[in-house]
């Protein structure tokens, strides 16, 4: 109560400080939610299908930029046989969505897809399958038509993998997907190859063999695929930097507020020290105010992040299923912890000032 009364003394300053904290926390939660969720979606997608290994171009920054020529894929296929499945992954800009995720899989792979409606292809050039999230967003059902890559195609199946990223994708037959994402005049290529081997000894052997015999490729466990993607590593580093900057700026905002509070209340601090309070008693009082500010800011920041995530998710420019719809409660807890940390760290400079307060001088302070 005392902390709240103290904060109410300068309402404009308190509101501005809260806004500063909320912006910092919202920024942290939003960017962290997006990157961790994308990584998790990729890992989930790989894990859901028991993909022990993913093979992709060594120099590629992501599976979308990985290019494996048909001759190279033939070599891999010859080495690993049916355990290897070539995949095409890419994005397209369509009038109904600016960032459509396109997947191309060979026909033998199709029976492993859990369908929630319809069936697999019978006339691949004129048909497509939609992930459940995308179908819901576009309000398309079995038998409806969707124009894709310049031609109307019939929706024959709707699949649900559990990965929002994959469930926001268009699934085509392999050649159709290659045609859709290959630039005009270029040779059709594959994106990645996945390996399902069954036991860990074979996985180790396959990893060693690819590393030795196919130096142009990188092989990573399916569950680590997201972490191995250079683009995601770069994004992750950027996000961490951004988070540190956001938290640093938030600390400065709170420090400024607490310093002003100490300056304005010097005489009160003198009174309290005259009746026997030690500096750490005063700091405890200031910490309560700092904590109220930071925790309130964290709550507002999380609400803002939630709103922002929903808004971004509703935006077609980002791509269906890429951005988390669900609120990451673990991040709410993390941001709460950060708020406590900010509240404590922001007290460092004011603490120095409080330790320098001489009760007699402070009592005369106007």
């Amino acid at each position, binding site marked *: 109560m005392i902390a709240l009364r103290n904060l109410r003394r300068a309402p404009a300053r308190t509101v501005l400080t809260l806004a500063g904290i909320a912006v910092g926390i919202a920024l942290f939660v939003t960017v962290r939610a997006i990157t961790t969720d994308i990584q998790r979606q990729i890992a989930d997608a790989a894990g859901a299908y028991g993909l022990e290994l993913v093979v992709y171009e060594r120099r590629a920054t992501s599976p979308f930029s990985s290019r494996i020529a048909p001759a190279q894929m033939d070599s891999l296929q010859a080495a690993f046989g049916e355990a290897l499945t070539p995949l095409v992954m890419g994005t397209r800009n369509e009038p109904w969505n600016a960032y459509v995720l396109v997947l191309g899989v060979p026909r033998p792979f199709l029976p492993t897809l859990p369908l929630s409606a319809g069936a697999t292809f019978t006339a691949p050039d004129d048909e497509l399958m939609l992930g459940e999230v995308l179908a819901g967003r576009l309000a398309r059902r079995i038998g409806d038509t969707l124009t894709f890559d310049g031609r109307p195609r019939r929706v024959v199946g709707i699949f649900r993998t559990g990965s929002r990223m994959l469930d926001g994708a268009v699934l085509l037959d392999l050649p159709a997907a290659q045609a859709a994402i290959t630039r005009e005049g270029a040779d059709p290529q594959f994106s990645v190859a996945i390996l399902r081997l069954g036991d860990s000894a074979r996985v180790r052997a396959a990893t060693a063999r690819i590393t030795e015999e196919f130096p142009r490729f990188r092989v990573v466990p399916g569950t680590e695929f997201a972490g191995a993607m250079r683009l995601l590593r770069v994004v992750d580093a950027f996000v961490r930097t951004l988070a540190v900057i956001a938290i640093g700026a938030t600390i400065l905002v709170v420090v400024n507020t607490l310093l002003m509070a100490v300056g304005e209340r010097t005489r009160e601090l003198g*009174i309290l020290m*005259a*009746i*026997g309070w*030690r500096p750490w008693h005063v700091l405890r009082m200031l910490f309560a105010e700092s904590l109220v500010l930071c925790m309130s800011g964290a709550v507002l920041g999380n609400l803002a992040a939630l709103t922002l995530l929903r808004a971004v998710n509703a935006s077609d420019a980002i791509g269906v299923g890429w951005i988390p719809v669900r609120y990451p409660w673990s991040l709410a807890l993390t941001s709460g912890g950060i708020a406590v940390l900010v509240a404590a760290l922001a007290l460092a400079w004011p603490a120095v000032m409080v330790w320098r307060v001489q009760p007699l001088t402070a009592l005369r302070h106007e």
Partner: protein
Amino acid sequence: MSDVARLRITDLARFFEANAVRALDGVSFTAKAGEIIALTGPSGCGKTTLLSLIGLLDRPTAGRIEVDGVDLATVRDGAAFRARQVGFVFQYHHMVPTMTLRENVAAAMLPLGVPRRARLARAEALLHEVDLAHRATALPATVSGGERQRAAVARALANAPPVLIADEPTGNLDSVHGARVVALLTAAARTRNALVLIATHNSEVAAAADRRIALRDGRVVGVS
């Protein structure tokens, strides 16, 4: 009133500005528990400086102050000394504006580690003693000057200190409210056996004291 010296001051001096300003110079006196002593004299004569030294808000340039036989020069923890041994009543009440009267009184008990509930209960009891129980949850800005000063007396009594220091406690009060504050300080001396030191310009307040020590230019010029 006890015959044992609660306060013994010997050749006390406090100089400022490279000894150019002699706020106190060669002050000596003793005071007993339960005694009320009025420090009188014109503004700038050294009354507040003397009280600050006795309350360990400041350190002397020379001389010695003993409270219950303890030389204050040997006291390293001034905050603990102030919390246990001294109760302050200032001229301008000096209450924390964002704490209620009860919280202000309870704040004095925080350094002694008294649990919150016990602090608030004792604060209620003390406010009852100074006839302010009905204003316990009021903020200082919402009560009269006299009520604020009575609350300040309650706060000064919170830890039952052996020494009460009151610096112009009636300076901003009318005669009725001033008399009530003096009555409370007198009661503290008589019933709690506290030594009460009052710096005052008010002759009626001085008359209520057991002894009057007159200061001028930092020196004792009369005791009556």
